[in-house]
């Protein structure tokens, strides 16, 4: 597909602008928004994983929050120094992070006798069970998880550079605390995981996954090992969730069991549906929307109609946000089956049609 000249120039310019914005942001934004951005980026990594599983392969998973918890808690367990009543292994933090992702993958693998055989609603509710089991373990296995109060997360450090508030670091007159430092780390991790997922989707595995989603029997007939693929994608998506869990733990600086409940699992499903099923970009857009919406409403609650301060009887910002994106999920499924990303593509195509630069060529499916 040949692109119009204007967009051939516009695209690199757009990317440069985006890259510049990402680099500059920590110098200007206040801590509140940096934190929100970190959450959004961590959620995006998790949502990419879920989109590989639910969007691209058609396997409904309601247990994503469980694997996030596995990642977060494994990191804390491995990286913490052993305490008086809490276990810890005191491993170097990068090693702990890698092992945490592996542990989430292993948890997904342990579930593969179910993940490889069940589908549709059965798989959805079976994974739902993981959330309850996970919560039970998190609250009860106190030496490992710290129980109700959770555990403090040891700060990440790479090659002697610590992603914490100390030692002090000032760049161009802006003090760089843990949030600023983690921002860049999160950007790199998000780009890498998005790039990897795009590779998976564009290659043979992606084709096989889509075929499984569209017609399982046909996939089997064409030689796709269906059960193996289903189990494999489940493991991969769990690893993404584990990575997201580690990132969230680092941003929160404390892991609490309550966070990894049903609400979180539903949030992730909402993200991929809103953004667009089956694509990396969709997952990122959806994650940004679902995580930033409550923050925006909280910040500007006094300026918005219908949104009240908590405790005054109206809609609190968090409730307003949930109702809003619940409605968006319904609206998207009804009117925009391809999600917000699909809408953007449609608008772009419509615009290109309105102002043709070329003798019109039938546009194929764009990436």
């Amino acid at each position, binding site marked *: 597909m040949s692109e119009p000249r204007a967009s051939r120039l516009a695209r690199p310019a757009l990317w440069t602008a985006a890259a510049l914005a990402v680099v500059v942001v920590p110098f200007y934004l206040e801590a509140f928004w940096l934190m929100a951005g970190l959450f959004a980026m961590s959620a995006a990594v998790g949502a990419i994983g879920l989109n590989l599983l*639910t969007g691209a392969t*058609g*396997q*409904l998973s309601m247990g994503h929050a469980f694997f996030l918890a596995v990642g977060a808690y494994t990191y804390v367990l491995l990286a913490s120094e052993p305490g008086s009543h809490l276990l810890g292994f005191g491993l170097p933090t990068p090693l702990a992070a890698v092992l945490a992702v592996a542990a989430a993958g292993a948890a997904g693998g342990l579930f593969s*006798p*179910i993940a490889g*055989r*069940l589908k*549709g*609603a*059965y798989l*959805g*509710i*079976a994974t*739902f*069970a993981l959330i*309850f*089991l996970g919560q*039970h*373990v998190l*609250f*009860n*296995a106190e030496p490992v998880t710290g129980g109700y109060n959770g555990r403090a997360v040891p700060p990440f450090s790479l090659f002697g550079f610590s992603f914490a508030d100390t030692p002090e670091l000032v760049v161009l007159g802006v003090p760089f605390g843990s949030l600023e430092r983690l921002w860049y780390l999160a950007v790199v991790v998000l780009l890498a995981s998005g790039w990897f997922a795009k590779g998976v989707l564009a290659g043979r595995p992606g084709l096989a996954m889509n075929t499984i*989603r569209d017609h*399982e*029997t046909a996939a*089997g*007939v064409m030689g796709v090992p269906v059960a193996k693929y289903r189990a494999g994608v489940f493991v991969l998506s769990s690893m993404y969730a584990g990575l997201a869990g580690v990132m969230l733990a680092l941003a929160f600086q404390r892991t609490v069991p309550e966070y990894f409940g*049903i609400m979180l699992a*539903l949030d992730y*499903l*909402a993200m991929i*549906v809103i953004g667009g*099923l089956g694509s990396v970009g969709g997952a990122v857009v959806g994650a940004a929307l679902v995580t930033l919406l409550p923050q925006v409403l909280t910040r500007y609650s006094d300026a918005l109609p219908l949104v009240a301060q908590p405790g005054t009887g109206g*809609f*609190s910002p968090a*409730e307003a946000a*949930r*109702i809003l*994106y*619940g*409605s*968006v*999920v*319904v609206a998207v*499924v*009804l009117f925009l*089956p391809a999600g917000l990303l699909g809408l953007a593509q449609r608008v772009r195509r419509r615009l290109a049609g309105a102002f043709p630069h070329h003798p019109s060529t039938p546009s194929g499916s764009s990436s």
Partner: protein
Amino acid sequence: MTHFAELLLNGVSMGAVYALIALGFVIIFKASEVVNFAHASLLLVGGFLVAELHGRIGFLPALLAGAAGAALAGAFVEFAVIRRSRAADHSVLAIVTIGVDIILATELTRRIGTRVMAMGDPWGDAVLHLGPVSIAETRVVALIVAGALIGTFLLAFKHTGWGVAMRAAAEDHETAALMGVRLGRVSLSAWAVAGALAAVAALFLTVFPTPGLDRTTGLVALKAFPAAILGGLDSTTGALVGGLIIGVTEALMSGYQGEFAFLGRGIGDVAPFLVMIIVLLFRPAGLFGTRELTRV
């Protein structure tokens, strides 16, 4: 032994209530091929209406109003959302019910707030003594009412025109439509019936010995999901058996918590999900579900 008998009776009674919820879940699946994740919220709608209204109009009218309200809510969801969805993919349809669930649950928990709402039922905390075994009256009533409702439903399912249409639609959508079964109506009525059953279940989930309806009631109702799944999503018998298994397991595990102390506190709440996973390991389509066979 008395302790065991009491637990068993309580478990069977709770199981009957779970079976009511699971039955609704199953008939929705049979009639419109949608897994309704908003079921717990429908239940909460019914329970909330009963709790709000009983002070003003009396208990029985409030119960009827609750059942009617939940039935309307179910029918509305079907009419406004499920029917209009163009998504062919079933997991997408399931996700749309999650969207509905998020909206309903958020609004209802906001309205309930931190209150624990009484249901105004006439049984109160009375206890029935059958020899050495004592059991709360509410549990006996729950068992009788749930049994009667399930019986009525199964009879209607078997013998009325509506039941035949429902079974035909479940068997083969297209053929049923060609034979003149109005699928829209079948699906609408299934959602309404499921809503009404859930409202009755909401009553019995929140009466004595439970303190009342609060914001966690929806979570309790979620235990009916494993009941429906382990019985088999497309089997009404499965829903009943599944409900009973879940109810009894939960009661026994909670009752003998001391012996299960090594599994941690509150194991009774998790037990339904554990049982479901174990069953699914051996029978991926549930105990009574039809196995999907594909011939190539």
